């Protein structure tokens, strides 16, 4: 059986006028269904570029990226939007909730673009908000929620269309450490329930929550091992 995610020989070159920057240099790896992977690396290592490509927000300069059986690197903007909508649940560092909008409404947005009828959307949104422990705050607007609560709304939003992968970019970067533990607990619970989670972080103790850690530096994978024991696999 083929992998859920198959990245092979992916390179990304940014051309900023005179200088060419090699953000990713011939990166290959697979991720299976049900994995909890942390991608670690210092700033400038290429982990954000990798996250953009995994999230179908950007396409590689060369190489192939197959997500759940679909070749992503050849798609048009609108087709990429469809992939992001159906297959990827995003959790951002800055939460990126709509301001002046209720938690409930925020969770329904991906479902709106997927064409799910309004009543059904609200029903699903309620279910996931209860799951992340915000059943009593569904009508609160973004500014009335703490950082940890906002991130939990974002997780509910990421889950709403039951995506193939949940892609979290520094999910605890903007929240207090006790709330960060709560958020990581939710990710671990989701992973136990079978969700595939890919998390980008530069904090080792956050990365420790994952089962597998991919270290990246200067656009190349330097280490790929288990979360707790850090065995070198490749």
């Amino acid at each position, binding site marked *: 059986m083929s992998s859920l995610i198959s990245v092979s020989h992916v390179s990304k070159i940014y051309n900023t006028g005179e200088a060419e920057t090699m953000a990713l240099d011939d990166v290959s790896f697979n991720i299976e269904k049900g994995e909890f992977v942390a991608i670690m690396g210092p700033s400038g290592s290429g982990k954000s570029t990798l996250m*953009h490509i995994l*999230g179908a*927000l*950007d396409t590689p300069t060369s190489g192939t990226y197959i997500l759940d059986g679909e070749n992503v690197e050849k798609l048009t*903007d*609108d087709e990429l*939007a*469809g992939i*992001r*909508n*159906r297959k990827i649940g*995003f959790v*951002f560092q800055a939460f*990126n909730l*709509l301001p*002046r909008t209720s938690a409930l409404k925020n969770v329904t*947005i*991906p479902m*709106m*673009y*997927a*064409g799910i009828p*309004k009543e059904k959307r609200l029903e699903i949104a309620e279910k996931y908000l209860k799951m992340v422990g915000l059943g009593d705050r569904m009508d609160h607007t973004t500014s009335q929620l703490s950082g940890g609560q906002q991130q939990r709304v974002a997780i509910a*939003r990421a889950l709403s269309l039951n995506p193939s992968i949940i892609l979290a970019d520094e999910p605890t970067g903007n929240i207090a450490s006790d709330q960060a533990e709560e958020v990581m607990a939710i990710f671990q619970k989701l992973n136990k329930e079978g969700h595939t989670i890919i998390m980008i972080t530069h904090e080792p103790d956050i990365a420790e929550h994952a089962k597998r850690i991919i270290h990246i530096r200067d656009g190349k994978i330097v280490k790929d091992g288990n979360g707790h024991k850090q065995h070198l696999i490749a």
Partner: protein
Amino acid sequence: MEYKEIVEEAVRTLTINKLRTGLAMLGIIIGIGSVIALVSLGQGSQQSVSNQIESLGANLLTISPGSQQGGFIRGGAGSATTLTLDDANAIMSSSTVTDVSAVSPEYSRRAQVTAGSNNTNTSITGVEAIYASIHKVSVSEGQFISDNDNAKQAKVAVIGPTTASNLFNSNTDPVGQSIRIQGQAFKIIGVTVSKGGTGFGNADDVIYIPLSTAMNSLFGSVSVTSVVVQAKSSNVMNAAEDEVGYLLLDRHKISDPTQADFTIISQNDILSTVSSVTGTFTALLSGIAAISLIVGGIGIMNIMLVTVTERTREIGLRKALGAKKKDIIAQFLIESIILTFAGGVIGMMVGVAASFGISKVISLPFTIAISSIALAVGVSGAIGVIFGWYPAQKAANLQPIEALRYE
């Protein structure tokens, strides 16, 4: 994504910043409002003018003597003495003229008039009894010039209400009073009902005297200054014009119609001339108002561009979460259409209210054409599409990564 929801969302977004939304709409409100008000006032004044012309009588042809040509000097139309009372009688009695129901020969000249210590300069019009029915003149007191007055060359006069107030103070009844026209004494036998005209040629500032008196005793003329002919109906105006024209050419022994020593002007000619003048004026003013609409549209575009820039992160997020280009275009385009459409509806109400108020103040008939309302609302929606298109495209083409990073 259903359109009802996009509309609700757009209304919600627009009500967040009420001041900005209001100011953006103001341009459209002023533009649509002024177009509606100006078109309405233009139509009102056009109607007012045609009402006034029609109040002077229906289906009328006015025959004036042609200009006098002597050497190189050409006099103004009406200065010639080629039109006579016999011409008028011939029109009435001719067997070839079948579409004419009444003929009114008239002699008109301005003269100085005194009543006691008051004096005025006004139009003295010599008329026959038929004048009253052709020109829809009625008297509020006393009576009009009769055939008997003409037969006797009576020194009697019927005066207009403006003339009455010029010559007599308000508590004097003019009827029975005596006035002097060029030194000759006339007895006032009636005062006409006001027609509401103003300025030069005011139908209320006039003195009617018997035609025979005017031509023989007062001014000593053998010719009349005009003959007014009433056609039997508005449908036979052209036929009547031809019949009268050929009869007069024949009587004046002129074979080439271009050399005619008289001119015939139909009321329709005057009406269409006046209509085209007021129409041109209305079009000109509406054109200026339309420019303000374009300026309003540019204001909408400006505000939409600011909105797109401000909401770059939101757009990035929506695209990351699966919004396609058409979703983003719909969102911003509908926002700008709602802005201009709401502005158009408010502007329409302002315009109707303004034209109602102004027409009341300057006493014009108040008219609002459904077509101009439909046009204004349609145009305001179209402005939303035209000026919202570029900002919406700009939003839809944002790259999600860059938009999400935007500070």
